[in-house]
């Protein structure tokens, strides 16, 4: 974020350059080291206030952001739509402006509507970090995924990553495609034809409908959850059938003639897209992803937080 164009908001991976991401990773390396030391806190952002606005449910992202903010010494306020005046009919801009008038510098927002963060960035005067907007983007998840691949395999460039599952409704998939391609990895998406957007090959990704073929091709498999809450119609006959065809089991992994790493952005539906023995196996990077999430989010907050004047 010092290199190339300075960035005020983190709305998506689209808009970042490879060197932005490298800067974030190098900063995250430092924070990870700090987090593994005896004192896990720095006062780097002690005079700034951050509002976490979650208009949609979240465990990991929310806890991770909150921890990252606290480790940086920032003051935080938390907001969830279910217990707020949004239920009384207040608009998004009004809600956020009311919060900002209490002197808040940064907004971390998750919202069910795609583009909500971009919309907000045009109407309010604060820095915005997208923590997931509908089916659009989830940039910090993609950053921590790429950071975890870099940590486990040494580099992202040249690696082959397959994203399996509900690509159509997944913001993680889109952000991951952008970030992995920026860093020089090859990306494939895999899933039933109904859950893969029609023109996705225009993004330069390979498409497969056969999990075994995809697993044989890749170095890393990123398993996505079926987002039933976003599906307004049935996209496949039954969850059982989906699980048989696209669920990752230890049996399928053992049939490969190589070792691959397994990722999952969480929450996991055990027995659907991934079986318990895979999720808990040595191939799984799931908890490593969660751990790296705090360091990566600290890096994003720190780099953006420096540019508020």
């Amino acid at each position, binding site marked *: 974020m*010092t290199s190339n164009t300075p960035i005020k908001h983190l709305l998506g991976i689209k808009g970042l350059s490879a060197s932005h991401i490298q800067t974030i990773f190098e900063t995250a390396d*430092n924070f990870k080291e700090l987090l593994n*030391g005896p004192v896990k806190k720095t*006062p*780097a*952002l002690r005079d700034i206030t951050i509002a976490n606005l979650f208009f949609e449910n979240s465990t990991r992202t929310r806890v991770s952001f909150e921890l990252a903010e606290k480790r940086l010494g920032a003051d935080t306020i938390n907001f969830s739509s279910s217990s707020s005046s949004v239920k009384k009919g207040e608009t998004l801009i009004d809600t956020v402006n009311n919060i900002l008038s209490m002197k808040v510098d940064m907004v971390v927002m998750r919202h069910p509507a795609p583009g909500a963060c971009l919309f907000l960035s045009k109407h309010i005067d604060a820095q915005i970090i997208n923590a997931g907007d509908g089916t659009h983007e989830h940039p910090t998840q993609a950053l921590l995924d790429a950071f975890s691949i870099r940590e486990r395999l040494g580099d992202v460039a040249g690696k082959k990553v397959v994203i399996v599952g509900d690509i159509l409704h997944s913001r993680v998939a889109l952000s991951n495609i952008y970030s992995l391609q920026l860093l020089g990895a090859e990306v494939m998406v895999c899933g039933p034809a109904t859950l893969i957007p029609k023109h996705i090959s225009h993004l330069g990704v390979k498409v497969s409908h056969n999990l075994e073929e995809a697993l044989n091709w890749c170095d890393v498999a990123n398993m996505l959850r079926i987002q039933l809450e976003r599906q307004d119609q049935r996209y496949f006959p039954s969850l059982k059938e989906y699980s048989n065809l696209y669920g990752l089991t230890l049996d399928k992994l053992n049939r490969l003639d190589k070792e691959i790493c397994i990722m999952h952005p969480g929450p996991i539906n055990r027995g659907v897209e991934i079986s318990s023995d895979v999720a808990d196996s040595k191939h799984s990077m799931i908890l490593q992803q969660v751990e790296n999430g705090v360091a990566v989010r600290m890096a994003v907050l720190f780099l953006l937080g*420096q540019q508020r004047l």
Partner: protein
Amino acid sequence: MQLIELHGDFSNTAIIGLQPRGIQLSKRLVEAITELQPETNLKYGELDHTFFRDDIGRGEIFMPKKSNINFSTESLNIILVDDVLYTGRSVRASIDALMSFGRPKQVELLVLVDRRFQRELPISPNYTGVVVDSRSTGEHVKVDWSLDHPQVWLLSSKE
């Protein structure tokens, strides 16, 4: 020499160079000590204080460098090493950063150049190379390591 007098065989001492410009000096210092005491088990580390600065978000953008301290600082005598001591603010930040690695027994400061009339905090070095008594804030000190013997330049900002 003064260091050897006070720290003996350095068995309980670590030299820590401050990123970015204290590294050169601290490495030379470790070389010189190992030459005099080949048997020494002096510890060496590098410390970055970016996250502890008091001017984050006040204009300049700071990029963190690598901290590299792969030993416990608990109960050690630490010698912080930097090239130029000016306002004292980065040393203050470095001390805070150092404390996040544990509680050392003692912390000392060694600098090549001490601009002693420019201090903004009550900090003074234990060991000094040269003292520069300039009072003007429009000047800065540059240390050139490219030659065999480091050269210290006092430059006015017009240059």
